[in-house]
């Protein structure tokens, strides 16, 4: 069959109507060569490429051969790759363009014109990563002697001047100016040493940037850093700018010498330089979404990477690698391990762990789910067990030692990651190294951040693993943080009381092979108890029937669904159901959370009543535990995404979600205000009240988790800030969020 179709194709091609055979062969040859060029370009752009110099050589000769005949095709391929180069390949691509510039000056001139236009378009359309990539590419083109110094300076200056002008106007979002400054500042180390020689105009650039850096307002640092003490966690732009000052004072030190262009220095120097066409900076566009600011995340002191921007470039490479491959954790782990091996002797493994954990804990939210980061780290541990476990252990120790300043909004992610990591390696991770942190008696307090961490971590480990096996690996000194055995706690009902009688009758009927809901209703009607105690007994009996597993519980609830739905009509009824659930499963928080969520999905209990239940005074202490927040977010997810449950019109679900979110915010704020007043009355310092601090963190967490929905309740938040009886710490937090919201998207001037 295959051979036949081949023959048929051949005959078809040679038919007189089609292209003459000679031209066809030519065409084939060109196509082949284009494919080769494409392939080589792709290989150079791939991570962990070896033999870059050889490939550059091959590409140079191949493209030189093709250019005279197939200029357009070659240029199209070239532009496709340099349009958004991965940062590690920028220099290689620039070298190729530089080598071609020697023999094909006019062609490259045309190419440069297109690239400037591409940059302009990227800025216009808000393709920020592409714009940054192109600016860095121009920088490398200067290093490859393709464009002259005054051109590149002019380009930088147009970015820098725009920052200052926008800042003065006050109309543009600061994020726009920050982005422009960021592009230039991160490009400078690649080129600073040379440009310094151009004297005045370079000084002008630095002064302009300096003015901007002095004037820009920076309030997000506190909000976006993973640790509260910000000594190592600084705003990204400040960090890089400090380095530029440092580099400049030290005559730009020497920069990493591994650039491909250096090997072609002699040849490159023979070419003529171009003057870049002028770049027109686009007008401010308020509709665009600008890149959000971030805080540089550091947990390791890596001395050999003392030049911050070197570290920046390594981190860029790691991040690009991760982003490109994270959907396939094995491929991702392979490339990251190769990167570590390539930088052996250095501390690249530390950098990789730092970048991955930094992304995982990033605020407002991480780009991927926590498990995506965790699973890549697990794969890396399998490939380089000795190295990776050691680095992760070091990182974990940093987190433990700085636990009191870890942002609450990152807490759940950290605990979830660590418990998953441990469950993949027999729960053997460094208990003995952690022990010393827990010997201090001050930790015994229930509200100590370390105690909370250990307690929640152990709970999560127990949820994933086998109780006894974990118990055996945990050192005795930490046993006090262990959760109780997670069995149901069946309350005792005295048969002599009406409650006991009801329970007895219900148990009898529920124990039948086929429970008849009608009979249950009759039993309930006969009982002289008030409604809420009745509901309490009923739900206790039903849940007890199903206590063997989630499936059993769900089956029991399903049978009783109509009875329960008919009974539960208001908030008090709903709270009776929930209190029955929480009492029976007091030793098993997972059951409390999962079953409560199912009650919502079965329409037995409404979302707003679960939210009010979470914030009832009796659960105040439990608000420092993860499960209540798991439940709150699950409830909000359910209301926000009606596709998961019964179909509700979009508007309606949006309306419900908005109200639910506002309700949750209001309840936290109220609890905080009350606690604030109590502290004031008792003349207690706020720093000593960890519950207060934790709840402030949870307020932030709630706002971060729903950051993209904040616009929906923005006006209410503003009103809230101006309301009476608001304590200052809460107002401060809400204002920071509003500022970050506004920064991302300035209020369009729509005064009526």
């Amino acid at each position, binding site marked *: 069959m295959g051979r036949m179709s081949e023959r048929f194709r051949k005959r078809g091609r040679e038919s007189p109507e089609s292209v003459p055979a000679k031209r066809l062969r030519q065409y084939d040859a060109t196509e082949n060569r284009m494919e080769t060029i494409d392939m080589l370009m792709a290989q150079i752009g791939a991570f962990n490429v070896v033999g870059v110099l050889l490939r550059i050589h091959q590409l140079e000769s191949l493209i030189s051969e093709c250019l005279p005949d197939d200029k357009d095709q070659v240029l199209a391929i070239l532009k496709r790759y340099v349009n958004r180069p991965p940062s590690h390949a920028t220099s290689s691509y620039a070298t190729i363009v530089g080598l071609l510039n020697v023999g094909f000056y006019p062609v490259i001139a045309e190419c440069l014109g297109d690239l400037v236009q591409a940059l302009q378009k990227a800025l216009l359309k808000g393709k920020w990563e592409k714009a940054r990539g192109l600016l860095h590419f121009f920088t490398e083109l200067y290093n490859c002697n393709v464009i002259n110094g005054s051109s590149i300076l002019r380009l930088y200056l147009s970015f820098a001047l725009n920052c200052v002008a926008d800042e003065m106007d006050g109309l543009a979002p600061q994020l726009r100016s920050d982005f422009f400054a960021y592009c230039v500042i991160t490009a400078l180390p690649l080129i600073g040493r040379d440009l310094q020689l151009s004297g005045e105009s370079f000084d002008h650039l630095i002064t302009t940037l300096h003015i901007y850096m002095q004037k820009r307002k920076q309030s997000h640092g506190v909000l976006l850093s993973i640790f509260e003490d910000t000594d190592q966690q600084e705003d990204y732009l400040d960090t890089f700018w400090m380095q530029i000052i440092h580099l400049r004072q030290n005559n730009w030190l020497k920069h990493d010498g591994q650039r491909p262009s250096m090997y072609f220095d002699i040849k490159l120097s023979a070419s003529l330089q171009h003057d870049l066409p002028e770049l027109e900076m686009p007008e401010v566009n308020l509709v665009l979404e600008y890149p959000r600011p971030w805080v540089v995340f550091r947990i390791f002191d890596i001395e050999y990477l003392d030049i911050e921007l070197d570290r920046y470039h390594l981190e860029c490479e790691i991040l690009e690698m991760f982003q490109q491959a994270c*959907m*396939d*954790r*094995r*491929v991702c782990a392979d490339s990251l391990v190769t990167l570590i091996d390539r930088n052996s002797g250095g501390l690249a493994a530390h950098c990789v762990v730092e970048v991955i954990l930094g992304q995982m804990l990033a605020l407002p939210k991480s780009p991927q*789910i*926590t*498990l*995506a980061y*965790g*699973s890549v780290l*697990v794969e890396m541990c399998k490939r380089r067990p000795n190295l990776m476990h050691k680095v992760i252990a070091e990182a974990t120790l940093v987190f433990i030692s700085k636990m009191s300043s870890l942002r609450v909004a990152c807490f759940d992610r950290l605990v*979830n990651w660590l418990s*998953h990591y441990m*469950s*993949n*390696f*027999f729960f053997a991770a460094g208990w003995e190294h952690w022990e010393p942190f827990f010997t201090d008696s001050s930790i015994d307090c229930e509200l100590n951040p370390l105690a909370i961490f250990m307690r929640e971590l152990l709970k*999560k480990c127990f*949820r*994933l*693993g*086998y109780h006894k*096996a974990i118990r055996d690996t945990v050192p005795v000194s930490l046993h006090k943080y262990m959760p109780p055995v997670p069995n149901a706690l069946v309350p005792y009902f005295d048969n002599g009381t009406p409650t006991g009688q009801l329970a007895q009758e219900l148990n009898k009927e529920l124990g039948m092979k086929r429970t008849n809901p009608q009979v249950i209703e009759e039993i309930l009607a006969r009982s002289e108890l008030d409604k809420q105690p009745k509901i309490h007994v009923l739900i206790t009996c039903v849940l007890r029937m199903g206590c063997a*597993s*989630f*499936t059993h519980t769900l089956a029991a609830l399903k049978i009783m669904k109509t009875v329960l739905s008919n009974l539960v009509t208001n908030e008090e009824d709903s709270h009776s159901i929930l209190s029955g659930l929480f009492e029976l499963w007091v030793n098993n928080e*997972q*059951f409390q959370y*999962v079953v409560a*969520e199912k009650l919502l999905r079965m329409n037995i209990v409404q979302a707003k009543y679960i939210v009010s239940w979470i914030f009832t005074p009796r659960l105040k202490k439990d608000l420092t535990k993860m499960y209540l927040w798991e439940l709150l977010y*699950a409830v909000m*997810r*359910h209301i926000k*995404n009606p*596709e*998961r*449950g019964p179909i509700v019109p979009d508007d309606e679900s949006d309306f419900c979600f908005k109200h639910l979110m506002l309700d949750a915010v209001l309840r936290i704020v109220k609890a905080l205000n009350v606690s604030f007043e109590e502290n004031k009355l008792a003349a207690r310092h706020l720093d000593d009240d960890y519950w207060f601090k934790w709840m402030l963190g949870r307020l932030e967490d709630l706002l971060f988790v729903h950051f993209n929905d904040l616009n929906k309740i923005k006006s209410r938040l503003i009103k809230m800030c101006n309301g009476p009886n608001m304590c200052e710490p809460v107002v401060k937090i809400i204002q920071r969020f509003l500022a970050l919201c506004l920064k991302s998207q300035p209020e369009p001037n729509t005064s009526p």
Partner: protein
Amino acid sequence: MATSVELSSYRDQHFKGSRSEQERSLKESCTLYVGNLSFYTTEEQIHELFSRCGDVRLIVMGLDKYKKTPCGFCFVEYYIRSEAESAMRFVNGTRLDDRLIRVDWDAGFIEGRQYGRGKTGGQVRDEYRTDYDAGRGGYGKLLSQKIAPNTDNR
């Protein structure tokens, strides 16, 4: 082992419908088959691990046809496909209860499928196994019958 979200080469032979129908439903499904579980792994453990990829709608534990005890597999259903995809990506081939578990697409749970299809009630693979697997009842069923002949004199 397939790491991505694509279909593996396994096809359920008991599927009612044509091969292409089966593939279509596999490609739209939100249900996963989870294999190589320990007999002792609980539904709650599975729930905890899989809920890290998204909200879990349902877990159906695989049971021994006769003994009605867990026999080392289950079905996990999500509300939305993309969350099931995450589980394929990040959970397949990782550890639960110290065992590397297998996650694969499933065309959707139908009553009756929760039971082992082996002659002895468990999964077929546990009949012919020749290794000792403490998490799955020791040696394979056929082998263990040979090693320790039935001493029950009823």
